[in-house]
């Protein structure tokens, strides 16, 4: 359940942002999470509610945007969209795909109130 520690660092980072951006309450949080980031969406939503209790994000809406992974086939050099580490290349059938995007966990935006 590392989703719990991810949820806790989300709250910590929101609290730091509250100091730099001077807000008192968060209405909505938008995250972008790559399909290869190793995050279970439902677990993160569940942990977020627990982590947000008594914080300025309590009751906030958490929106998680999935991001498909991108890779380059190391054999035929075609760009590939994938959702796992071991799909064969759709063009040449080889397994060697270098992932270039899809492991990220990013806070995109916060909708806040003073």
């Amino acid at each position, binding site marked *: *359940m*590392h989703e*719990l*520690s*991810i949820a806790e*660092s*989300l709250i*910590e*980072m929101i609290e*730091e*942002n509250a100091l*730099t*951006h001077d*807000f008192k309450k968060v*209405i909505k949080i938008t*995250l972008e999470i790559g399909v*290869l*980031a*190793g995050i279970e969406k439902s677990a993160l939503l569940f942990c977020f509610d627990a982590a947000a209790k008594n914080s300025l994000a309590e009751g906030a809406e958490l929106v998680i945007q999935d991001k498909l992974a991108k890779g380059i086939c190391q054999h035929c050099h075609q760009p590939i969209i994938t959702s*796992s*580490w*071991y799909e064969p290349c759709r063009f040449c059938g080889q*397994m*060697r795909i270098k992932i270039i995007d899809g492991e*990220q*966990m*990013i*806070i*995109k*935006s*916060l*909708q*806040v*109130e*003073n």
Partner: protein
Amino acid sequence: MCNICGCNKAEHAVETMHKHADHQHDPISEHQHIDCEQNSAAASVARLSGSRMLEIEQNLLAKNNYYAEQNRQKLQADDIFALNFISSPGSGKTTLLTEIINRLKKQHVIYVVEGDQQTAIDAARIRETGVKATQINTGKGCHLDAHMVGHAIDHLDMQKNAFLFIENVGNLICPAGFDLGEAHKIVILSVTEGEDKPLKYQEIFHAADLMIINKIDLLPYVNFNLKQCCEYAKQINPDIEIIQLSATSGENIAQFSNWLIANKAELQSGYCSNNKKDL
């Protein structure tokens, strides 16, 4: 005082880790954000309702990655070769570590950080070999993070040119994404767990540089397709190296100690040539 975060807890990293409710450290630049309050249409709509939109684009792992980089720099500066051992509970991490330590300790300086949710049993097992070990208890935490390990490193007060073995909390899933500042992640899979694990828990097999298949002394008694397991691991990570051994019978352990010595030397020669380039 701790060098990582300046916190004043004298007792931390000593068998139990402190929680940080009492102090804050914010190493991450606060200036990565792009504040789009002025321009975006969404923001103006939001402002009508009394709220505003902040586009911040911050990496949720930034803090851990920052501490990991601090650890890595410190370890490199002291010529310490650090390895992060990850496996499910009971695959034989501590058994393998004690075996390998007994083989290497005459010629090499070795330190160990033990991660478990509870108890200091594993650190005590390591100390029986005579090397210095510190236990981190994560409580409910399911993985070590770079900040805890930074404190443990401080606590160990290591001399230069050594091995640092970090035994992560027994868990094949959660530790995968948390860089600790190690040179390599090593995943251990024992033959009683089934050959399909690389496909079921892809992240860690993708992140590791070496897979150890442990408990091969049990192969005659279990249905474990060794060849299939290696193929699955190579599908997830074509560059992964594989060593099959038995920590209890000692079979092939020499292959692993050779791997350790060779990779330490390789990393250190890499630092040397980098340093020369800088000069």
